[in-house]
């Protein structure tokens, strides 16, 4: 199956210039909020360093910390499950739901369950899964995928939300007021919360030292979802671990500031064991993560705390939209994570980047994102997945550049052609540069020629 690659999907998004600019500006607005929050802490760069080190330390002792977490969580009365892949994760969730014959589930935002495609799996079993984060509910009703990990509906206009809510929640047609629409969602989802048989949440952080887990939301949907029904299932990738509770001081200071430019999320909830009379099940999911751990090139991506700052700052993401990446996690971090699962399918993603490095500077845990993307390009070349249209010109250029004489000749011919060819011979379908850009003006003499003249003039002056 040939899947559409990023350049084509992006071009389609960019073709709607007004909308692409609207999208770009919406995310730039978030980036600016983030900047204001970052500068409000003079210790920002030290926090980033500390966070990065804590995560690297955790990865270097991951197995020990996982066992410590399991021990402590179990002591608190939680049940810990292990899933090596998405399939096993989904089956564990299903078996837990079946045990209490749960039919209606409320779920707060969890990129892991997106990664595992939990919703369609449960729906096939006749279980209703309602995403309770407003943005996620909007995309769920529209049968779309989130286009951003923190702002799932950032690509959707309020008029479109209004249409969707009119259709599904019977809101008044043409009322596009975000207050009105949010109120409608609040009332609709209240019913779902109250009727739910179980609540599923993601996990922002899990604490090895205490066996607890932390879930952050602004809406309070995770908390509402798990404090009414008796069953709470928390799904987490194994990289969510931190060694000690006090480490959270660093991460909670960075997370919301980086994500949305808030000083902290409205709710940062610490769950230690089930609530009285309830059950807490924690599913630890690998799904390829332990393989990344051994790779010195890509291990860094396991530091990610899913704040989305790299997306908000990425000039390509902002203009091409999250869906152009064709992955659960889009943007710079997604372009690193996706090829580690299937580099052939996602081979264009590491190239959907100008290597500007803004993501690396914005990342609160100092993942060297743009360098990892560059590493992936090499890896894709090594795996023979780079099209010949890219490898051949590079091979030729390298060969040419190894001979200054040849370089001079080819350069001179090229310049001559640029000066003398008619426009139609230069600007055509095979020249993507010239579609929207003029070619550079072609000088008669190259620098090396001018330099020769300069030198001989200098000699004759002396």
């Amino acid at each position: 199956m040939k899947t559409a690659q990023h350049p084509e999907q992006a071009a389609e998004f960019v073709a709607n210039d007004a909308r692409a600019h609207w999208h770009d500006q919406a995310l730039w607005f978030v980036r600016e909020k983030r900047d204001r929050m970052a500068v409000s802490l003079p210790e920002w760069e030290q926090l980033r360093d500390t966070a990065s080190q804590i995560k690297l330390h955790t990865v270097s002792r991951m197995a020990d910390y996982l066992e410590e977490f399991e021990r402590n969580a179990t002591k608190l009365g939680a049940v810990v499950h292990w899933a090596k892949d998405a399939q096993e994760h989904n089956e564990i969730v299903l078996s837990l739901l079946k045990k209490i014959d749960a039919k209606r589930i409320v779920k707060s935002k969890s990129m892991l369950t997106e990664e595992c495609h939990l919703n369609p799996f449960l729906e096939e079993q006749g279980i209703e899964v309602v995403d309770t984060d407003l943005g996620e509910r909007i995309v769920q009703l529209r049968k779309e995928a989130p286009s951003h990990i923190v702002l799932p509906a950032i690509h959707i206009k309020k008029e479109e939300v209004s249409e969707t809510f009119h259709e599904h929640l019977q809101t008044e047609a043409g009322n596009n007021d975000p207050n009105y629409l949010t109120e409608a969602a609040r009332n609709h989802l209240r019913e779902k919360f109250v009727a739910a048989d179980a609540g599923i949440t993601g996990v922002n952080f899990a604490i090895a030292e205490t066996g607890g887990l932390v879930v952050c939301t602004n809406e309070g949907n995770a908390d509402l979802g798990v404090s009414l029904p008796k069953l709470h299932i928390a799904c987490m990738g194994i990289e969510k671990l931190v060694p000690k509770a006090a480490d959270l001081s660093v991460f909670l200071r960075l997370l919301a500031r980086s994500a949305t430019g808030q000083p902290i999320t409205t709710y940062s909830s610490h769950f230690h064991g089930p609530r009285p009379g309830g059950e807490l099940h924690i599913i630890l999911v690998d799904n390829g993560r332990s393989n990344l751990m051994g790779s010195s090139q890509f291990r860094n991506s396991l530091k990610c705390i899913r704040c989305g700052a790299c997306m908000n700052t990425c000039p390509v993401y902002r203009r091409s939209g999250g869906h152009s990446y064709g992955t659960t996690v889009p943007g710079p971090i997604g372009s690193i994570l996706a090829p580690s699962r299937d580099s052939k399918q996602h081979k264009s993603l590491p190239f959907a980047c100008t290597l500007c490095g803004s993501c690396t500077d914005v990342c609160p845990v100092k993942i060297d994102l743009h360098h990892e993307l560059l590493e992936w390009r090499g890896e894709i070349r090594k795996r023979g997945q780079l099209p010949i249209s890219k490898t051949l010109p590079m091979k030729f250029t390298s060969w040419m550049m190894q001979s200054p004489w040849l370089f001079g000749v080819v350069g001179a011919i090229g310049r001559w052609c640029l000066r003398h060819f008619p426009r139609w011979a230069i600007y055509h379908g095979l020249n993507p540069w010239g579609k929207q850009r003029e070619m550079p003006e072609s000088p008669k003499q190259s620098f090396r020629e001018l330099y020769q003249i300069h030198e001989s003039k200098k000699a004759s002056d002396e």
Partner: protein
Amino acid sequence: MSSRDQILNNIRNQIVASVDHPGLAGEWIRYDDRVEHYATVLAAVGGTAHVVDSAEQILAELNQVPAFAAAKKVVSLCGEVAGNVDFAQIDDPHKLEDVDFAILPAQFAVAENGAVWVDDADVKHRVIYFIPQHLSFIVPAPQDAADAIVDNMHQAYERLSFGQPRFGTFVSGPSKTADIEQSLVIGAHGARSLNVFFLRQ
């Protein structure tokens, strides 16, 4: 082999250079006036801070809040303000669905982010932090409001311990969302308003 052992073995088979934990010491931010900073940040996230000296003052302030005046069902877990729901007698948290206003104790506040810390040690149904339409917290402040406010999250975690089955959360302002075109809307699923009272004793 179980999945657990497979995962752990696979991790242990990877060669990962050892990295030390960096420690948490640092020149973390402090504020000259924690009370003022807290109030500013809380206002920025949609809440309101009050410094008061008596239960009467709290009630007077609450009476200024239209949602309190209009509330039919009020849960109070603070001695300073009376509610009209017998919280202890409620066996099913679903019965709290229609609570209009709750007044709950909080332990301390954090200046850098406008949060208060609450836990369910003495609270039977933790949903009470999330389900009421409106929420107020009363934070005991021994002498001065500043005594109940730490500067930053590092100091906050120094005050916390997590030894037993319990739920705790930092709450910073009322529930909110900006999921529709980045327009901030207060009152997503949880409280639509949040007042924090520092009660000097």
